[in-house]
Structure formats: C-alpha cells, structure tokens
C-alpha cells in the first residue's frame, strides 16, 4: 500500500514537474488517470485491465498513442531519484557492451535521452491486456478514417461508428458531418449520429433520433428501434417515434428488396441472353442445337484466365486493363474452336438435328476433359480489375455491384450488335435468307456453307464473350458450362426459333421469374417450378413465343 502511494506521489510530482517545465501547460492527468497509471505498473491483472479502460476512455489521442505503445511492449518504468517513472521506449541500439534505448515521456513524448536497457523495466502487456486495448485503438483508427480521402473508407468508418454507438464519438461525427460533401457519406454520418443519440441521448434526443432514423431509412437501426419500441420504461413519445420509424424503414426495405430482385433478375437475364443469343441464331439458321455451347463458354472463361496471368507476368502495372484485352481474345478463341467444330464435323450432319445434338455433346465432353487435363480439375482464380469491383449506390440500402452492371451493359451491346449485323449488313441479309429458305438462297448464289460457318463461329464467339463476362461473377472451372447450358436451352425453346425478340423476351422472362420465385421456393424448387412453367407454356405455344410463320408444316 505504501509503495503504491509512493509511486502515485512520484508520478504526480513528475507530471507536475513536467507541467511546470513547459510553458504550454501540458494537461495534468485527472486523479482517475493518475491512479490508473499507478495500477498499470502493478501486478493485479484485473486492476491493470481496469486501468487501461480508464485511460482509453479519456479518448485523448495522446493517451491512445500511449496505449498503442503499451500494446507493442515498449512502455517501461524506471526508477529515478527514488520514484518510479513511466516512459516510452524508442529505437534500440548497442553501445559498447550495453544495449541502450531512446526514451520519451509517457504523455507528451518529450525525449528523455538514451539510457541503458538494464535501467528500465518493461511494463508487460499480456494477451488479456492487449485485447482490452484493441477496441480503443480501433475506435481511434475509425475516427481517423473519417478524414480519409476515399469516400468509401469514410462511409465505412461512419457505419462502424454508428454500430458502436459510443457517446464520445458524437462530437467527432458531428464535426465530420459539417465538413463532408459526399452525399452517401453524409447519409452514413447522419445515420451514425442518430444511432449514437438513440443509444446515449436524453429521451427527447432519442425521440428525435428515432424520427431521423426513420427518415434516413436506416436498416441497421432496426434492432435498437425495436428495443426502444418495446421498452416500457421509455416515454410514450419515444416509443411512438420508434414505431413510426420502424414502419417507414420496413416499407423502404420492401422497396429496396423489390428493386434488388429486379436488378438480379436483369443480371441473370443478361447472362442467359448472352448465352442464348449464339445458341438461338445457330439453331434458327441450321437447326443445330449446340450442346458444346457451354464448353465454348468455358473456353472463353479460361482464355480470360490465361490473358490475366499473362498480364500479371508481363505487365503488372497495366493489370487493370487485362480485361479489355481478354474480351476480344475470348471471343476469338471460342469462335476459332467453333469454326473448327463446324467445318470439321457438324457440316456433315445438316438436316439431322438429333445427331448433331449427340455429336456436339460428345465434343463438349472432350473439350471439358481437355480443360480438366490442361488446367486441373480445381477452379482457377480470375481476379476482377479494380474498375469492376465495388458498386454504385443507387438508393439507401442498395448498392449495385459494378460487375453485374457491366454484364447487363455487355448483353445490351451484344443484342445491339446482333441487330445491326442481322438487319444492317449484307452478311446479315444472307444469314436471314438462309434461315428462311436454304435451298432457294443457294439457288440465288448465296454460299450457304460459308454463311453456316461464319454464323456458327459468331455464335461460338458470343459464348466465349459470355464466358469472359462470367469470370467476374462466378467460379471458373472445367464444368462451368454445365451450370448454365440447360437454362439457356430453356430460353431458346421458350423464345422460339428465328426471332431475336423471342430470345430476348424469354431470357428476360426466365431470368426475372427465377429471381422472383427463388426467395419463396429456394433455388432448387424454383428451377423445378420454371421447368413446369415452361412445359405448361409450351402447351399454349408449342413453337415458343414467336414462331416463324410460313407454309412449312414441320415448323
């Protein structure tokens, strides 16, 4: 007891001396902190932990720095003229046969010279103590992040502060809110402020905070608002405000979920569309169902992987632009394989759709196994370029990831290109002519074989493009194609042959329907429901949405 008293006295004396020696009056630690510092040098683990909490709760940046030093094991005590003094160690060096260390004062970091290490006694920071220190350092770091140049970091820090809801953070958040210009960070800061007030404020402040949280559509405030609404000790005004806010947030949540489902449906529809476009054109033109379409897609995905590795090895500084190179490369690789497939085998089987189906299935097995033998059976890692990671916030509680937005854009571009090709170019004219009447077109001098080959290669290239896009949202493995192929067949069957509009509408319908019923039925039974739906739909329209009209009884 007596020793502790001496230490305390010595500390106070030392700090007082420090304060006296500097004109810029360093704040004297409050008695509580002084006691805590004394406890810290003791042996009682509970007291040491309590001491850290006391020091941390000052939220004084300098004391936080002191805690950081303590965690790193560079806080020492030294005996000086009969008193114990806390110092922070700096650089260590060896001088002669002695290890020496630069030391500085605990609070002000005033340099105190270089002393032999043997004169000092380290203040140990065991695991428990470090764990106690960590939240204070984190909170400090989070507050520092509010000034980060990156708005995403600022926003993340604001959200974190709101979740912690510590009263002392309020002034910091308010300060940041005054300076902030970014809309989404402002929103996050306002939400954080309201959350802090909801947790720590007076009843009137709490009611105001609940109201503002309702206006901010804060989904993360729901648990605390629900607690407040159910809290019988709270004032009626608070509870009414909380109930109102909950109702508002729930309505908003329904809206965001609906928009999100629509977006996910559009994203799935785009993937299906990218795949089905190539399939549908080839099917319309040649009556060939290309079962290897999925594997052509996998080839596109693996081409992206190879291009990525190549960039990583050769041009690491331009890594982000690898994807722009991978897009045409994957198109070309898949188109080349498609061309070989068409000229090599498929052209011998025109007019026999079931046989081409089996043939292309055989080709798909060979490509798939080839990929497995070459690249290994495990999934390969394709990393997104930085401009495709992250997302664009469109409304409160809803961020649309860039990669999905990109796929929707790519599908739109593919459709536009397809329309242009089919209806604005001579090649397209020939394709449409052969689709309508192969024999007559041949008689009129259209080289049907060339049209077949180029169209098939183009369809295969589109599959490669789809594969390249898929690397951004899914796993890349040898069986990549299998996961989507049946779905895209369903699109072709539902859409009907020979009309692009059918394919577009069918992929939009199937994509939207899948995402729409998935929450209710789950992915598996959703798929079954889609199958049943397609079969029932075909009862009404056996040839799909848009059947080609003509005098052909077989159509």
């Amino acid at each position, binding site marked *: 007891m007596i020793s502790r008293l001496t230490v305390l006295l010595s500390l106070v004396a030392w700090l007082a001396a420090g304060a006296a020696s500097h004109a810029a009056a360093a704040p004297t630690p409050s008695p509580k902190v002084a006691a805590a510092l004394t406890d810290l040098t003791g042996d009682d683990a509970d007291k040491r932990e309590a001491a850290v909490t006391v020091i941390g709760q000052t939220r004084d940046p300098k004391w936080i720095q002191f805690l950081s030093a303590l965690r790193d094991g560079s806080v020492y005590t030294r005996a000086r003229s009969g008193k114990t003094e806390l110092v922070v160690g700096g650089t260590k060096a060896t001088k002669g046969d002695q290890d020496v260390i630069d030391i500085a004062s605990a609070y002000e970091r005033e340099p105190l010279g270089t002393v032999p290490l043997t004169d000092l006694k380290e203040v140990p920071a065991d695991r428990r103590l470090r764990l106690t220190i960590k939240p204070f350092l984190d909170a400090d770091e989070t507050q520092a992040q509010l000034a980060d140049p990156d708005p995403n970091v600022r926003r993340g820090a604001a959200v974190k502060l709101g979740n912690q809801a510590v009263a002392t953070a309020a002034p910091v958040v308010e300060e940041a809110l005054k300076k902030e210009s970014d809309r989404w960070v402002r929103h996050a800061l306002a939400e954080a402020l309201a959350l802090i007030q909801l947790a720590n404020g007076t009843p009137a402040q709490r009611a105001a905070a609940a109201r503002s949280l309702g206006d901010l559509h804060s989904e993360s405030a729901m648990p605390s608002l629900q607690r407040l609404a159910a809290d019988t000790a709270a004032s009626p005004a608070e509870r009414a405000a909380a109930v109102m806010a909950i109702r508002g947030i729930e309505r908003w949540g329904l809206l965001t979920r609906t928009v999100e489902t629509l977006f996910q449906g559009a994203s799935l529809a785009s993937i299906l569309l990218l795949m089905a476009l190539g399939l549908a054109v080839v*099917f319309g033109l040649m*009556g060939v*169902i290309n079962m290897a379409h999925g594997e052509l897609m996998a080839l596109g995905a693996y081409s992206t992987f190879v291009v990525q590795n190549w960039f990583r090895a050769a041009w690491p500084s331009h890594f982000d632009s690898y994807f722009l190179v991978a897009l045409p490369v994957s198109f070309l690789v898949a188109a080349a394989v498609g061309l070989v497939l068409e000229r090599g*085998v498929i052209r*011998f*089987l025109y*007019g*026999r*759709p*079931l*046989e*081409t*189906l*089996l*043939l292309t*299935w*055989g*080709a*798909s*097995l*060979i490509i*798939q*196994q*080839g990929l*497995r*033998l070459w690249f290994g059976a495990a999934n390969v890692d394709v990393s997104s370029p930085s401009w495709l990671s992250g997302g664009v916030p469109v409304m409160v509680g809803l961020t649309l990831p860039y990669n999905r937005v990109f796929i929707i854009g790519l599908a739109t571009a593919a459709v536009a290109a397809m329309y242009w090709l089919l209806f604005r170019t001579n090649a397209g004219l020939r394709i449409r002519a052969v689709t309508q009447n192969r024999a007559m077109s041949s008689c009129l001098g259209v080289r049907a074989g060339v049209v077949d080959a180029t169209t098939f290669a183009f369809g295969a290239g589109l599959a490669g493009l789809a594969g390249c896009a898929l690397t951004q949202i899914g796993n890349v493995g040898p069986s990549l194609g*299998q996961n989507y192929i*049946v779905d895209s*067949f*369903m699109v*072709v*069957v539902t859409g009907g042959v020979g009309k692009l509009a059918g394919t577009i509408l069918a992929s939009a319908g199937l994509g939207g329907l899948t995402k729409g019923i998935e929450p209710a039925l789950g992915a*598996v*039974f959703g*798929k*079954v429901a889609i*199958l049943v739906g*397609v*079969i*029932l739909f*075909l*009862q*009404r329209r*056996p040839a799909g949405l848009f059947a080609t009209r003509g005098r052909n*009884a*077989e159509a």
Partner: protein
Amino acid sequence: MPKREVVALGIAAIVVAVVLPLCNLLPAGSPLAISNFTLNLFGKFLTYAILALGLDLLWGYAGVLSLGHGVFFGLGAYAMGMHLMLEIGSKSVYQSSLPDFMVWNQVKILPLFWWPFHSAAFTLLAIVLVPALFGFAFGYLAFRSRIRGVYFSIITQALALSAWLVFNRNEMNLGGTNGLADFKTIFGFPLSQPATQRGLYVVTALVLIAGYVLCRWITATRAGKVLVAIRDSETRVLFSGYSPAAYKLFVFVVSAVLAGVAGALYAPQVGIITPAKIGVLPSIEMVVWVAAGGRGTLYGAVLGAFGVNWIQSWLTTSYPDLWLLFLGGLFMGAVLFFPDGVVGALGRLGARARRIVSRRADPAAATPSVSLGRPTS
C-alpha cells in the same frame, strides 16, 4: 419374329440366363469359372440393357430422343431402394427402425410416403406404376402440345437436371447426395450371399429376355409400323388420320416402365442408388449405348449397353482420365462414322463380304442390296 432371330435369341438366352450362372457355380480354379464379382458386374450391365431396350424402342423406332431416362431409372431404383432400406429395420448402424440417413438428419418419424414401401407387393407395383404414371403425365403434356425433335430432347434434359437437383435435397427424405445404400436383405434373402446375387442375376436376365420379346412384339404389330412411320415423317402420319401423340405416349410409357424395372434390379445388385445416376450426364450416356450399338434393332441396344459399360468399367479403373475423352469420341464417332452402330457396321461388312464371295462364284447374280427403313434422325 423371323426364325433366325428366334434361334439367336434362344441361344443368347440360354448363355446369359443359364450357362453364365452355372459357370459361376464352378470352383474358382476352373478355366470356365466366373467370379462373383464378374457375375455381379454382368448383372449390372443387364439392367442397363433393359433400359437400353426401352430407349431404342423410343428413339430407334419412334424417333423420339429422350435425354431424361435416368429419371425413370432412378424412380424404379429409389422405389426398390426404399423397400430395402425399410427391410434393414433396426439392424442399421444407429439401431433405429428409421433408415440411417434419417437418424442423421434428425427425422423423428418415418415420412408418410415411405410407409407403403414396407409392403413388398406395393413396392413391386410402385416400380412399374410410378415411372409409368410419371412418364404418362410428362409425355401427355409434351406430346399433346406437339413438342418434338430437339425441343423434346431439351425438355427431357431439363427434366433430368430438375430431378437430379430435387433428389439431392435432404428435405426430400431420400438420402440426399448419398442416396440409399447399405442394404442388407431383399425379400428376406441376405444380399451378401453369392446365391442371392446369382438369383438376382438370373431374374435380371429373364426380365431382359421378356423385355426383348415385348419390344419385338410391339415393333412387329401395326402399332410398331406406325411408330416407324412417325419417325420417318410425323406430318404424313398425322395427315393419314393417325394420332402420333397417342402412339408416342404409349411407347414413351413402355420405355419409362422398362427403365424403372431396370433401376429396381440395379439397386440391390449394386447396393447403392444415388442422384448421380439420375442427372444429365448419365441420362445422355444411356443414349450413347443405343447409338453405339445400333438404333432400331433392339439387339444393337443390348449389345451397346453391354459393350460400352464393359469398356467403361475397364477404362475408369485403368485410365480414369481417358474415360470422358473416350465417351466424347464415342458420341462423335457413333454419329459420324457408324450412324447405325456397331451392329449396322458389322452388317454392312458382312453384306460386302457376301457380295464379294457371290460375285466370284457368279458375277451375274450380284445385285446391289437396297436397305429400307434405316433411321434418318
């Protein structure tokens, strides 16, 4: 049935159903002895051959290509498997009257649809009726709306995918990914006894022969002629006043039942049935048995099922990486080079040999043979 075929069938039946099991009875050292393992393997191939018969009837004769017959195979196999699971009773690992996987999934009471499978008679009925009814419902919807050609193939493939997904789910109470396994007895006979396996083999062989006779009978009737006509020109059949949908539905149901029976015989002989037998790949593999053997001949399908699976069991043990490459090559080769399968290729080879022989004997008598009714698609 032509006389030659009757004789050939009789010889094949005696070899498969009588001679092979007798060889199995020989002591292990004897040169003609067939091990229990081999006989069991043959039993498995025979179940595949039963399924291939139905598929050939459907595709080779009626021109309807189903890529979802694994589903019907699975329905039969699961029906049998459920009965076998219940027969285990409390001799299972967890000593519970429930199947092991239910204990594992913390299912407390037997789901209602499992109850009737306690009865052997119901199980035998279900093996036939469940695939038949399911095939009827699916076929009715598909054929009524005139879904045909590749459209039908794709729809059946989607069916295989959906069924595979559904059977993989644990909440279906059908064992999930692990399926049904660890059977102990069948109708009271212990499955670990070679005698039981031999008996199952003989039953499978007899069912195959009966199935062959049934399919041959169907193709020989008027209905069989209509089926071939539908394959060659469905529109013309329609305009001639027949209803192709009814004929196709009939043959679809027959092939579904054959697949179900094959599955029911498969489960006890192999000792496990999992969703992996139902999916897209196994279903389309079944088609290649028929394509490689020779479509529209029935015996080609049987030979194809036997041959392809024999090669598979050899390749997957010796060169596992090559199996899928071989299978892919088989698909392509069977379509490109042997459109009428091994049987057709051998037949053409034989015909050419005969022609050469007869030309040498009497050059004037050699006339080009005209083959009719070869499948076109």
